[in-house]
């Protein structure tokens, strides 16, 4: 094992220790009743309840709804983001005009538009998907543009030498060269789509995991609320870790520039 690998493994062990220590501390505080059960249940009870909740199938409909909406919003954000970025890459003036929008976009609370969308479109799936799309699409555009900017000029010349058509040049050269940055965009779009759907379900909705959490909160039902929160944290952490790994693999394969 190389020294850097060994160091990475050691860091991972420390990370688990920090996490495990935090959970153990919570467990101790809960068991000793420093934190009373009305505020929080002990971690081992949360895990048990999560297992029961998933096995009972009570949450299947909510989970399916949240996942469907997230995937729809993600698909929209990624495809629209790619197309818009490809267009903007060729239209310098348009891109300059939109630059202030991109620079300040994430400073504006997109969720503030949620009540407006509810009043206009009704309390259904559409406002949630719109919010999740709006959150994700700009990250996708900005990162794809960043990737396209970094396609080496020599590749573009090669495309001309080989007389590739625009579609071939895009698929065989630009896409692989910009790949790692596009994956960064996808990673952010996944996180934002998830945040958008769960968040809007949580604020006001008629179903989904976020709705179930807020419903359980309003009914002081900690046996449902905490397991669902843990479920969401696990799902988003795993998705993020998988995409980060993919991003690194692509970056390593492409080679640093």
């Amino acid at each position, binding site marked *: 094992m190389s020294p850097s690998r060994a160091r990475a493994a050691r*860091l991972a062990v*420390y*990370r688990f220790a*920090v*996490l495990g220590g935090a959970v153990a501390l919570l467990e101790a505080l809960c068991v000793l009743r420093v934190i009373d059960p*009305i*505020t*929080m249940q002990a971690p081992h009870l949360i895990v048990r309840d999560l297992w029961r909740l998933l096995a009972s199938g009570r949450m299947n409909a909510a989970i399916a709804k949240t996942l469907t909406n997230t995937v729809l919003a993600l698909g929209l954000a990624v495809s629209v983001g790619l197309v818009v970025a490809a267009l903007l890459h060729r239209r310098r003036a348009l891109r*300059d*005009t*939109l*630059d*202030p*929008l991109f*620079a*300040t976009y*994430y*400073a*504006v*609370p997109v*969720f*503030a*538009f*949620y*009540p*407006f969308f*509810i*009043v*206009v479109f009704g309390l259904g799936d559409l406002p949630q998907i719109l919010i999740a799309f709006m959150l994700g699409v700009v990250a996708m555009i900005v990162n794809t543009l960043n990737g396209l900017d970094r396609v080496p000029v020599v590749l573009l010349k090669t495309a001309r030498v080989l007389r590739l058509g625009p579609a071939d040049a895009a698929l065989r050269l630009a896409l692989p060269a910009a790949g790692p940055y596009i994956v960064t965009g996808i990673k952010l779009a996944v*996180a934002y789509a*998830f*945040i958008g759907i*769960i*968040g809007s379900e*949580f*604020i*006001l909705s008629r179903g989904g995991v*976020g709705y179930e*959490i*807020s419903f359980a*909160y309003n009914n002081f039902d900690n046996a449902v*609320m*905490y397991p*669902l*929160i843990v479920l*969401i*944290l696990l799902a*988003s*952490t795993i998705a*993020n*870790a998988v995409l980060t790994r993919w991003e690194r693999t692509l970056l390593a394969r492409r080679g640093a520039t």
Partner: protein
Amino acid sequence: MSDAHGLRNGLLLVAVLAALWQAVYWLVGDSALSSPLDTLRYTATLVARDDFGAHVYDTMRAFAIAFALSVVFGLLAGFWLGFDRLSGDVLEPMLVTVYAIPKLTLYPILLLAFGLGVSAKVAFGVLHGIIPIILFTVSAVRNTRPILIKTGRAMKLSRPQMVRWILFPAAVPEIFTGLRVGFSLTLIGSLLAEMFASQRGLGYLLMTGIGLHNLPQVMSVTLLIVVFAASVSVLLLWIDRRLHRRR
């Protein structure tokens, strides 16, 4: 890009967005959208209303406390993690992960811990704002040019002196970027908290607008929030770019 150029693009963008809004209004009509002019008119009466000041005060107080706490603890944690290589390497990826989770789901826990009130709102704002401040400070401290640190060592500076005279000045531009992002996220956090559960504040005004089906109120408050967040962000971005250029 020059400032004048950026200003022109910004103004053009605002004009295009306003025109788009008006065009959509003509398309869908009064029932679905209130026009830009009507929204401005309603905003004027809303701002003049007696209770409006109290709502703004409530939001801004929670936001200000949250941002102050985020800055103080974010800088402290950032300098610590930046200095101490091992802690930084262990904890930084964990912070990045927390950055990407839907933090809104954690709000009920804060509500149970702090009770429904200003402290839960503040805690939620801090949860959003502190992470970017930590991350940017860590990277700022680590990217300080080694020659500067060697100079400090040669002068036998103590750790606090090192921070005060070497690391902090060298790291200011990047730390400022962290503060800029932290400012926006703290604002988002405070507003989200109000939208989920509160009795006062701008987020509360937004949500009651839905119940009353008061479209002009919803649009006016949204407009106010967006204009405020965007203008502050533009200002901070401008300072940010100047700091980076000066270095």
